[in-house]
């Protein structure tokens, strides 16, 4: 049976992980490769690396990060942050990344989704959507969730799917950082409406929240950062908990 995926997200700045990490005895918690290896051993199903500086200079660092991670770990990983062109993606995939994620660049120029799907296949094109609930309607935000757009999330999600996105990484800015649970309604709406997988993100604070993301939010995968980095939810315990709730999990790690 196809399992639901648990995805730790690592924020990257200047080639280093940011945010404190205290869940394992790592000599250097800022080393994304060591952290990736530790998460892999714990049973993470996939990893996402997001470059939060997203500058032109950062793209060189990202390609070498992709190479180092691909060398070390044997599970799939996605890289995002500042990707604007077919050339950017080509370098990251050639370095060993399995997928890339685009966000603001797709909003700015939606044809980029078509170009990437045509050139590399939909399977490696993740479109990240940051969304916020404004007066009862979910809207798309860009630039790390700071900049509002007139796009409605439901319509934008359908458009990127039609343009060839292989997966949608949906981050609810309304929930992000609150540890009060994923935004289940918008996640379930997109999942029910679109034929491609939806990764739920933003708001994970407890193991119950993950169960809700899968059972009520109908998510195919759930992504989180802090609860994993700070060790409040160890991945093996989370997976055992979810499996006991009848949610299929990969347990052979």
């Amino acid at each position, binding site marked *: 049976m196809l*399992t639901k995926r648990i995805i730790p997200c690592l924020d990257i700045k200047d080639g280093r992980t940011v945010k404190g990490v205290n869940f394992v005895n790592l000599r250097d918690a800022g080393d994304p490769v060591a952290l990736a290896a530790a998460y892999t051993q714990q049973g993470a199903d996939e990893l996402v690396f997001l470059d939060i500086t997203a500058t032109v200079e950062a793209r060189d660092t990202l390609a070498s990060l992709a190479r180092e991670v691909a060398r070390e770990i044997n599970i799939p990983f996605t890289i995002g942050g500042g990707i604007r062109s077919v050339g950017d993606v080509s370098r990251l995939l050639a370095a060993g990344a399995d997928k890339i994620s685009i966000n603001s660049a797709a909003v700015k120029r939606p044809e980029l989704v078509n170009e990437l799907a045509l050139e590399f296949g939909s399977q490696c094109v993740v479109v990240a959507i940051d969304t916020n609930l404004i007066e009862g309607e979910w809207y798309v935000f860009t630039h790390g969730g700071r900049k509002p757009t007139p796009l409605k999330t439901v319509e934008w999600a359908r458009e990127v799917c039609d343009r060839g996105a292989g997966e949608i990484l949906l981050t609810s800015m309304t929930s992000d950082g609150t540890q009060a649970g994923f935004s289940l309604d918008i996640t379930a709406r997109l999942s029910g409406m679109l034929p491609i997988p939806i990764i739920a993100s933003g708001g994970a604070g407890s193991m119950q929240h993950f169960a809700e993301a899968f059972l009520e939010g109908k998510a195919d995968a759930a992504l989180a950062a802090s609860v994993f980095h700070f060790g409040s939810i160890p991945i093996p315990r989370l997976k055992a908990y979810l499996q006991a709730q009848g949610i299929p999990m990969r347990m052979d790690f």
Partner: protein
Amino acid sequence: MKLVIIKYNAGNIQSVLYALERLNVVPLVSDEPEEIRSADKVIFPGVGEASTTMRYLRNTGLHSLIPTLRQPVLGICLGMQLMCSYSEENDTHCLNIFDERVRRFKTEDPAFKIPHIGWNTLEELSGPLFQGIEEPAYAYFVHSYYVELGPHTIARTPYIQPFSAALHKGNFYATQFHPEKSGKAGATLLQNFLNL
């Protein structure tokens, strides 16, 4: 041991290279018929589209070389599909090593997303490729087309209906999943292939 990865216009050769390096093997990536023919083992990887890739294989003559290889050959993902007789992906005639047709997943059930992406179970494992891999085992899949169950099936996976997760016939082996991205089980499978 001389291990050759067939070089062609398919993506993600790098991940396969790294996975083999982790097993302390340094493969040669080549499209030279002599290099491929003289290898002890051959890997035919692939991520991409069937018709474009078959056209490339025909133009380079690799389409007639691959089916005549005598050493162990491992096809991965699109590599496996191209080793079948025909693919529905853009109506493509393939290498005909396995007399199987490659079909597109179809379902009216919204619970099944297409492509099939993620970790799924490997069931009813048989043969040397799966030695030491205990069920339930999980492997990483990314695909929209599949091979039905048949006489060459050596592992099955349920998605919409059970399909062939791996095939074996003579010296030819193939997996629909990506062993290079399938954690411990994948690494064990690659090591088993190297041990053949």
